[in-house]
């Protein structure tokens, strides 16, 4: 790296800087430029590229950053990664856990076994360090590139200026070889909580900042702690602060998290001997370990008012931020990418009006509001803000040791579930009377085992018309949109009964129209071409 560009250390050097012809030419126009090579930017580039839409990703680094950071990836994220061809190594590497224990002081309040519902390809969540998640996405991008996907990754490329014109965004990019300019028909900011694109545009956040610091210590040890999530309110060990967490990651790494308060000296807290004193007190005497990574973080629960500003769109932490409780940061960002990719692809192909992108703001804004609500509630439980909230919090923990009802109030983070786009403009009517609520229009399709494989494997990222025990009509000329047809018969295709339970309920048959991101558009007891066409037009923001 040359002067003027700070090179952060990386866990994996995935896209080393290399000089490209753009640097010696007048500003070249690109269809899509993604800024930021984190999980969201990489997933978006992969999805767009696999659809055949050219995408250029710029990252100021040369690979995955250091430290575990996001460690909990939820089922919906794994389903999306599976659709993108990236999930298998994640599942092979990730740690699956089900048992959690909650402590208050020295006492165990209760333990829970999440016992995931059967009949899904993917577990409810895995623990996996963020650098691995990013590496496996880049591996999938390399595979897609080899198959012809028009994706380009440029490491060591930092965006240092940006202006928005009528039909494009103009960027200045600084590299180790100096600066160059380029233009983007569409610019997607996936550049994180400190988004420079947001700063260039003078856009702000709305929401709350929580005045607390958390110390993360990732330690490597082979001690025989079980693969469980342990959470302490008012931990009994020296210096642990108001709450503490112990959680397993791959490679014999354990995430230790201490809530250490607002008025701290950050550098002093990160001194290895100070960190080790805390860790020693938590793990007990005689446990040998190495410090793998340490960090002090604060957090916010806040969002941009709008995620689209003309030809610039914001996704992931650049658009919205939550507390880490409930693993809603990276997981919601991946849902942003999932939501945006197919819409942007259709707009660029001229198959949908650009107002389709406004639905991205509405749908993912609704998701952000839901995530902010959940994570704010968890934060308020973890860090009571008043005397009376402390009294109620402690009353809940006291009761929870003896009475099951109080355990439902204990909130150390509600794990991320995909959000449902109820009552939003793209979502059609629910004509399946008494159909299961979990697969209603707006919901992400729930997986189910088929005679051969799983249902979500058959929803390949394009519109799908799914018939369950129902004939499908012949539909021609669907606005030029590819519409896959999937006719299933529960007598032969539903070995466990889960498909009928999740998609029919009491109904004998059903027809579902499903979006490229696997969310349900509309459903009916039987198929009528007119209703299907109208629902599809609505789902791509065509009027009338």
């Amino acid at each position, binding site marked *: 790296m040359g002067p003027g560009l700070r090179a952060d250390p990386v866990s994996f050097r995935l896209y080393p800087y290399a000089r490209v012809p753009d640097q010696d030419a007048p500003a070249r126009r690109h269809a899509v430029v993604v800024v930021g090579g984190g999980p969201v930017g990489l997933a978006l580039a992969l999805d767009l590229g696999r659809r055949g839409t050219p995408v250029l990703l710029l990252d100021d680094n040369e690979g995955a950053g250091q430290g575990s950071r996001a460690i909990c990836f939820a089922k919906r994220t794994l389903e999306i990664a599976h659709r993108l061809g990236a999930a298998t190594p994640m599942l092979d590497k990730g740690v699956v856990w089900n048992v959690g224990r909650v402590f208050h002081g020295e006492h165990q309040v209760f333990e829970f076994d999440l016992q995931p519902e059967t009949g899904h390809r993917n577990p409810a969540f895995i623990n996996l360090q963020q650098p691995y998640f990013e590496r496996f996405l880049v591996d999938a991008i390399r595979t897609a590139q080899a198959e012809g996907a028009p994706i380009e990754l440029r490491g060591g490329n930092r965006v240092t200026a940006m202006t928005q014109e009528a039909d494009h965004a103009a960027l200045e990019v600084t590299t180790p070889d100096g600066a160059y300019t380029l233009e983007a028909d569409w610019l997607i900011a996936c550049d994180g909580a400190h988004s420079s694109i947001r700063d260039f545009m003078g856009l702000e956040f709305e929401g709350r900042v929580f005045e607390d610091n958390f110390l993360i210590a990732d330690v490597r040890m082979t001690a025989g702690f079980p693969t469980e999530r342990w959470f302490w309110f008012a931990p009994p060990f020296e210096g642990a602060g108001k709450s503490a967490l112990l959680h397993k990651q791959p490679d014999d790494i354990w995430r230790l998290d201490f809530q250490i308060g607002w008025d701290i000296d950050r550098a002093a807290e990160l001194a290895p001997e100070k960190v080790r004193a805390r860790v020693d007190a938590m793990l007990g005497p005689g446990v040998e370990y190495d410090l793998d990574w340490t960090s002090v973080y604060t957090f916010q629960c806040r969002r941009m008012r709008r995620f689209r500003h003309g030809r610039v769109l914001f996704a992931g932490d650049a658009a919205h931020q939550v507390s880490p409780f409930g693993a809603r940061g990276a997981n919601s960002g991946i849902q942003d990418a999932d939501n945006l990719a197919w819409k942007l692809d259709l707009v660029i192909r001229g198959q949908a009006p650009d107002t389709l992108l406004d639905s991205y703001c509405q749908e993912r804004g609704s998701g952000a509001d839901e995530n902010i609500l959940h994570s704010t509630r968890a934060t308020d439980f973890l860090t009571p803000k008043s005397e009376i909230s402390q009294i*109620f919090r402690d009353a*809940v923990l006291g009761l929870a040791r003896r009475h099951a009802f109080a355990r439902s109030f204990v909130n150390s983070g509600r794990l991320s579930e995909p959000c449902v786009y109820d009552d939003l403009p793209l979502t059609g009517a629910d004509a399946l009377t008494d159909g299961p609520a979990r697969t209603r229009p707006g919901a992400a399709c729930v997986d189910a085992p088929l005679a051969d494989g799983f249902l979500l494997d058959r929803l390949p990222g394009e519109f799908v018309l799914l018939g369950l025990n129902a004939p499908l009509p012949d539909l021609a000329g669907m606005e030029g949109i590819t519409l896959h047809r999937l006719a299933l018969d529960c007598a032969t295709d539903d070995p466990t009964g889960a498909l009928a339970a999740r998609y029919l309920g009491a109904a004998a048959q059903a027809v579902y129209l499903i979006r490229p991101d696997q969310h349900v558009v509309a459903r009916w007891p039987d198929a009528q071409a007119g209703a299907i066409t109208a629902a599809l037009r609505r789902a791509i923001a065509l009027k009338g």
Partner: protein
Amino acid sequence: MPLILDPNIDDADGFYDELLAAHHGLTKAESDALNARLILILANHVGDRAVLRQALEVAREK
């Protein structure tokens, strides 16, 4: 079912006695904690969110 605001406890004086007796000898902090536990226990027993919301509204009237 709407929130019951008419007399609904047999021997109201007796219950009031028991309520005060439960707090007997407690510090302010212990009493606050008991009240919090009692509210949570009773709220769970009621269960109905609409009734609980009405109760919160009535309680906020001074």
